[in-house]
């Protein structure tokens, strides 16, 4: 089974690249693959999961340039049930556009949501949420916000904020596409969800270093559920 770490040089902020490594390590015989000469691996070979992460705002433009020729192929892969995990602002690439002031950066247009970038309005929070009975933990830091994601939310927010400051829902889920503004080592921090994703990929084994991962997860959960706990960063 192959996990594509998509454009790690472009989408490698905050340690997000560890999500693909963690996922591949959880699959018996799992293998990481990457683009060659700017052409994604999914173009040349069958991949079972595509993982991409946080990027700078300029890199969003470069990533879109590289992905635009494969827009229909990406749509087909999503419809066909390939697993996608897009963390941080990478989920914005799959929407309609990223509005920046009076102009807009056209995105892949696969999903209906739209994003707005406001570099002078950065918001960050610790995060607690629910997905199919699982508790999701992590943190976010956003210069941009998505609107129209309420139709297919990924996570219900219980601590922190959602895809935009007014939303009680976080991210976008369609079939096996999971997009979330949660950033950094999302999978290592969330062993229950990683196990779920592994099961979608047909693997029922433990997550890598499950003992350590679960211990850290449970500790963090207790911390985030502490009465009076603050979520928003000052």
């Amino acid at each position, binding site marked *: 089974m192959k996990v594509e770490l998509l454009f790690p040089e472009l989408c490698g902020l905050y340690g997000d690249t560890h999500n693909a490594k963690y996922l591949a390590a959880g699959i018996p015989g799992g293998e990481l693959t990457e683009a060659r000469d700017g052409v994604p691996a999914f173009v040349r070979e069958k991949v079972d999961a595509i993982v991409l992460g946080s990027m700078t705002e300029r890199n969003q433009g470069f990533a879109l340039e590289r992905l635009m020729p494969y827009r229909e192929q990406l749509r087909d892969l999503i419809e066909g049930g390939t697993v996608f995990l897009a963390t941080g602002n990478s989920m914005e690439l799959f929407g309609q556009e990223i509005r920046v002031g009076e102009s807009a950066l056209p995105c892949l247009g696969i999903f209906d949501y739209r994003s707005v970038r406001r570099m002078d309005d950065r918001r960050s929070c610790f995060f607690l949420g629910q997905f199919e009975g699982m508790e999701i933990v992590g943190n976010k830091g956003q210069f941009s916000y998505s609107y129209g994601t309420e139709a297919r939310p990924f996570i219900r927010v219980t601590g922190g904020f959602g895809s935009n400051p007014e939303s009680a829902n976080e991210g976008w889920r369609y079939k096996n596409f999971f997009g979330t503004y949660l950033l*950094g080592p999302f999978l290592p921090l969330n062993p229950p969800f990683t196990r779920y994703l592994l099961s979608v990929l047909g693997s029922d084994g433990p997550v890598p270093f499950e003992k350590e991962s679960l211990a850290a997860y449970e500790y963090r959960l207790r911390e985030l559920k502490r009465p009076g706990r603050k979520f928003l960063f000052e």
Partner: protein
Amino acid sequence: MEKKKPGGGIRFWLALWAAKLSVPVLKLTRHNGTNFPGSVAMKLCPDFLKYLAMPERIVAVTGTNGKTTATNFICDMLKNDGLRVVSNTAGSNMYAGAATALMEGVGIFNRCRSDVAVLEVDERSTRFVFAHVKPKYLAVTNIARDSIKRNAHQEYIFDLINRGISLTPDTTLILNADDPVSSFLGEDFGGGDAHAPNRRVYYGMAGQGQEAFVPGSPDFPVCPRCGTKPEFTLRHYRDIGTFRCPGCGLSSKPRDYVALKLNTAARRLTVEDKGGEVSDYPMLSDTVFNAYNTVMVIALFREMGYSRERIAELLGKIKITETRFTLERAGGLDLYTYAAKGQNGSAASAVFEYLAKEPSKKELVMLLDEHYGDDQRIETVTWLYESDFEYLVRDNIVRIIIAGHRYLDYALRLRLAGFPEDRLLCLEDENAIPEHVETEGIDAIYFLHDVYTVDKARRLRARVMEKLSGGGKNEG
């Protein structure tokens, strides 16, 4: 000579006098080195800096890593040259800190009493400070991965500093040619500001035959002009070196001042000026980071008109306070406290590389945590995944003890990096460290600490020394 400024009306005078009055009050109440005077002034007169008299010569220093050390160098050298210097080295590097320092440089009638101001300016504050403070020189150390909470990412910081630079077009920029991020300050890669007209001077270092580890999370992962992965022909550490973009040809800036040779044993540095003259200077410590600070300071002082001989003389007079490490000996072991800067993947990785290459067999005690129970001070763990813990998977890193609030996160990260479970101990209670320290098969113990945990590291080391039944003090 001072810059004359128009009067600011009664609000300005009230602000100045209130700020002045607060200084002795703070001294009496033993609150030296705070930004309170500047904060008071700004509250009473938001445009306080607009009206405050300032010396003609202002030097500002910014960048991710090394700016405090560099600012201290510059201050000490100027003071040793007999100049009256004001600086915020004892206070904050934000707007209020700059205001406090500059306020201290004027009398109650707003007459400038200093010859030069040296300001360390936080990267995010440049756009506020430079609205009213126009440095003659802005020296930049580097821009690298830093705390996500404060600084987000390198491109964001690059654009913020550029916004600051756009407010002060007459400032000469002293830039690190070997840092592919900050060397392009003043240029526009789509961040909203057109190319700045500022004069630019570049410093750097020639290859010293070293082989730097390739960072897992690079500071300069793609070319800012075309998005292609750059090719490095030289790395001093991390992405500090010489690159070329195979996509568009963008490449490192030519250096005006270049350190040709580092003689770390003799602590001497050979630097070639842009005119081709080569001179020898004292080096203030044996690290490549401080070699960069030194060559930056040499470039700055040359641009300020100092002769090479005078610069060498002034550098030679600096008594550097070594805050990076302290060393004690006990039980036949070297016991270090060593600064590692948590929450900052670039700085932590540089320290990990040093520890991996330093050949002694060692045990590491990591105290890089922030404080438990304060939601705002406990930061995220993303930096653990931007730091190259993989460097520590070596035979000479015999054992790692992690303690503190984030101990379980460290345990997972180190296991993912490949560090063996049987050489790793993770404890929540830091006070339990001494009883778990093992000395078998090691030459040294390093207590790695953050800015806020230096005292804790020293206390724990003292307890370990007691356990090892004492030893002679060596150096600090």
